[in-house]
């Protein structure tokens, strides 16, 4: 246990919650490395939605997101004996997933098509935003939400792959600049620059839907 804490202290985390999360993950990883294969299912259940969400927002395709996230979990499981705790487990898992997605997007750049999930309009944050945007109800409201969803995905797809990744990790998944820099293996300044440029482009694309 002392070794686990010593390794965890080397990881770069953004908050105490992240620190506790990293320690918990490292304990599970040690159990998997010791031969407890079933312990890896806990890591899958813990990160599958976030991992799927990141890949989905990068690809805008639910089938690709499912395949790529599963592939990332399998790669992680096959390589977990080499994981020494140089970074937190979720950073390592995110890095594998993001690299696989970037490689997939580079290969399938010319044959990209959308396969969108349905927006859960009953979620409090989404409901509040939709209410702020329109006063329509019923079928008109659903049509409007679907149109807005397509516009959002169109605007995201106009970004480059790396800019889209930064926006996804920061604005949608809520990672810090430092964590994004670790995942994408670049500097924090690069992350900030990419984020600034991407938001400028998105602002110009989504101008009709924003209001100061």
């Amino acid at each position, binding site marked *: 246990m002392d070794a686990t804490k010593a390794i965890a202290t080397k990881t770069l985390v953004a908050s105490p919650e992240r620190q506790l999360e990293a320690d918990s993950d490292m304990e599970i990883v040690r159990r998997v490395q010791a031969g407890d294969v079933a312990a890896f299912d806990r890591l899958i259940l813990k990160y599958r*939605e976030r991992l799927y969400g990141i890949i989905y*927002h990068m690809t805008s395709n639910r089938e690709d997101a499912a395949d790529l996230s599963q592939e990332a979990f399998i790669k992680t499981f096959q390589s977990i004996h080499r994981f020494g705790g140089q970074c937190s487990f979720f950073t390592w898992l995110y890095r594998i997933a993001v690299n696989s997605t970037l490689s997939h997007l580079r290969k399938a750049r010319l044959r990209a098509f959308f396969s969108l999930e349905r*927006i859960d309009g009953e979620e409090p944050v989404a409901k509040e935003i939709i209410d*702020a945007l*329109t006063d329509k109800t019923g079928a008109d409201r659903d049509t409007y939400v679907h149109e*807005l969803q397509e516009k959002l995905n169109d605007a995201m797809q106009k970004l480059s792959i790396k800019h889209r990744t930064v926006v996804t990790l920061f604005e949608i998944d809520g990672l810090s600049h430092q964590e994004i820099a670790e995942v994408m293996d670049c500097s924090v300044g690069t992350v900030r620059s990419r984020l600034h440029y991407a938001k400028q482009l998105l602002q110009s694309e989504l101008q*009709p839907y924003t209001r100061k």
Partner: protein
Amino acid sequence: MTNHDRQRPVTLEHLLQLKRAERPSVEFWAHYERELRAKQLAALVEKRPWWRTVSLAGFFGGFRRYHLPLGAAAVLAVTVLSVRDYPAPAAVSVNETLPSQPAGIAREVAPELRVMPTTVTESPRAVSSSSVASVALPRMPSAEVRVETSEVVSSGSAHVQTTVAALAPTVDEPFSTAPSARLVVENFGSLQGADAVLSRHLLTPALGFESRALPAKPKPVEPLSQIKIPTGSRRSNLIASATLASTTTPVLANERSARGLSDERLYDTVSRVNARGAGVLVKF
């Protein structure tokens, strides 16, 4: 469409938060888990190639602190090998020997040369001058080609004969067995052999060509020696005619001067009265 009349602001961050609400259903996760389980089992059963099992990061991680000296050593080794295998081409040195020492130079060079069998020297004693050029070929430090040029002067005409002798590979040098040097030597030897055979086939039928193709020429004779001396009767006749001609000509000259005729008048007279054959032609 958009409701711009509402008071609450909607920013880009709000729109991007809306994307968080794009979530799959619960049924999707059940299907997702089954697929992942199947792929995980397939990955466990599938035999991975050995290079996938080797951790390159761990392998090269141990050398991380030595990467600078290892890189410098590698660059140094490549440089040494390059300089050793591909030296700069040496300058061509041509040693011109003095005309007073041709035999000595030839004797010096002779032991190192493998003289071509096609070398034909009409009169070796007539060598007036010779020069020896020593050429060091680039990329072949052990092979040295020596070119001996001899001017053989015969009695009637001067022939310049070039004897190319090559192949003085010094055995003691380490690169004498280099593949490129051996290849050059073998090619040169085969070329010399082919040249010898070709020369023999071409020159042998050509020898004595004039004696076979052309007819025998008569012995040249002096034209004056062919003149025969006339006999006695013929000589007397010739003398008589010559004497008569010398006596008649002055008579005609005297007669003309006596008449007082000018040359023009005489010409007219002769030309107006012309007797030919059976007729007489008179001009007025």
